[in-house]
């Protein structure tokens, strides 16, 4: 059967014969390997980052829950503190120790500077 395909390489008289060197295929393989590595790397990276993201979200949520719980506890403690600091409560506790508010005139306030404090007290007591 006659070759119907056109000839690719033609010898031109007077010219040096040109024939492309057969490829070793190393470059193509290298490129293919790099592309494949990048694809696999990207996939693994994405999975890793996704997992990290979920882990971070979970940790964040846990911390947020803890913060909320602590805030609630702090608020309850504040309420307890205020309840214990109320005048009626302190008065009740003081009575247990036989303590009571001062009688009218029992405590007197004098206006004095720091230096004259002692002399002011002496003066008042000597009245």
């Amino acid at each position, binding site marked *: 059967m006659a070759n119907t395909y056109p000839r690719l390489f033609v010898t031109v008289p007077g010219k040096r014969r040109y024939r492309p060197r057969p490829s070793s295929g190393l470059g193509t393989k290298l490129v293919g390997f790099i592309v494949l590595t990048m694809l696999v790397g990207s996939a693994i990276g994405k999975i890793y980052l996704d997992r990290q993201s*979920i882990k971070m*979200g*979970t940790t*964040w*949520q846990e911390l*947020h829950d803890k*913060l909320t719980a602590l805030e*609630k*506890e702090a*608020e*309850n403690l*504040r*309420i*307890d503190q*205020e*309840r214990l*600091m*109320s*005048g*009626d409560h302190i*008065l009740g506790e003081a009575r247990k120790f036989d303590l009571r*508010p*001062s009688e*009218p*005139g*029992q*405590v*007197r*306030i*004098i*206006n*004095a*500077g*720091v230096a004259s*404090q002692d002399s*002011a*007290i002496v003066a*008042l*007591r000597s*009245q």
Partner: protein
Amino acid sequence: MNHTVYVVRILTSYVGMCTVAFFLTRHLYSIQITKHPELYAKAASKYTARKTWSGTRGSIFDRRGNLLAGNIECKNILADLHLLPRDPKIREEIIAYLSETLSVDRDILAFRMRSHAREVVVRNYVDIDVAAIVAARRIAGLRFVDDQRRYYPKDALLANVLGFTTSRNRGVYGLEAIWDKDLASKDLEQIIERDRRGRSLGKVDPVKTRAISGKSLYLTIEEPIQHYVEVELRAMCEEFKPKRAYAIMADPRTGAVMAMAQYPTFNPNDRRAIEPEMWRVHGISDVYDPGSTMKCVAIAGALDYGVVSPDTVFDCEDGMWMYGRRSLRDSGHKFGLLTVSEIVQKSSNIGTAKVALQLGKPRLFQVFRRFGFGETTGIGLRHESPGIFRKVRDWDGLSITRFPIGQGISVTPVQMVQAYGALANRGKMMKLRLVERLVDPVTGDAITFPPELKRVAVRPPAAQAIVEAMCRVTAEGGTALKAAVEGYQVAGKTGTAQKLINGSYTGHGKYVASFIGFVPAHDPAFVLLVVADEPSNGRYYGGTVAAPTFSRIADQVLHYLSVPPTVASGGEADVIVRR
């Protein structure tokens, strides 16, 4: 021939590929465009969840930041009837345990458990500690939901003014209702992501969740002072058994209300015991005949108009004087000639009536109006009464002699405090106020309510003169020796008014005893009114019932405020030095 085969094959493949591509494109179009919302919602429901954050209702503080109303964390306990053990015996045991631990009526709980609903409430607003005890039993089907409830850590302290909220944290009375819009929290709804196990990945901005909380309200009230006032008012009520009593203290220079107490009162944390009569803030809604405490106002007006001076002498007719065919008496006293200062000191009805006659109807009316009678004070609480004060054209012939002695005119306690505040503040009447500032707890932005001058009621010389006269009330020869405070000069006035019952002031023996004054007289730290409505153990004079309470409160408050004594006093004392 071969060429045709290739062409046919190529065309067949092309058509095949086009067909596949067409169906793929159509399917993609259907997924991405036509069914997108439906499929997106379907997918979103798998990896997202809707969560609602409720903010915290704003707290109420006193002037110095002591908490008066806050929120306490609690749990709502619900029972899923499908998950609860079905064995009647076990269920009965659970009901018994829950009713005992949570103080719920057993029959009511059993009734709820027989419901056809999937989930029923066992008990709302359970203390966290109690809820933890129940949770430790690990009863299947019980669900614990976080919630908050309003809590008043000082119990009954300032209860009437603070008011209270509904179970859903909406203000219904007092400041809670008036400032509800600012105190109320908002709900924040957010869609959060979930992981494949359904765990929430809700990255909620904490600032956002805090931003939905209500604003904080800072009052002009000082908690320790309020406590002193309430304790002493309670003691007065135990001794004299009045129908009700109230005490109001304010700073005359700023109009800031420092304390506002009443009896009976209630504990807003125990709502089952609250009766509607107890809710009312009597200090603003009740009117009473002020009696002799009105004399200072009328006489200050006469001094201001210059119709009398402190030394002008009046004949007090030996205790009985006929005017307008009616007698006016100086209850049990036979005063002769008295100066205007002595009229105040001895509280002469006849002398005051004669001063008022000299002033004349129109000017007396103007004086009362300038002191704020017949109009609300605008203190910032609902249901404030303007009092009962008739226009001058409606006065009868006796009005000019009765109104200045506090008969036929009805005032609210806050009106009296406002009027005496003007006398104490050299005639300048400040607007009474309860709220000092409104603060956004997240940003710290504050809206402040500064002191506001309402008007000048009298000029300073007249105010000064009446203060001098009022100082004699608590001194030797005055009607309120028991109101004196050791080390301080007290300016004040007693009031003993017969109540108007069925159109009559006499015959029923019912009185309103009061004392109003300010300390130190010439540079007052506060003006204080103490009122006992219908004291019932035989004593009813303002100087006997209310004045001692005034003295005890004033003594404690002056120490608390570290006000140095204004007059020398003898005797042994423990000394506090004020630097």
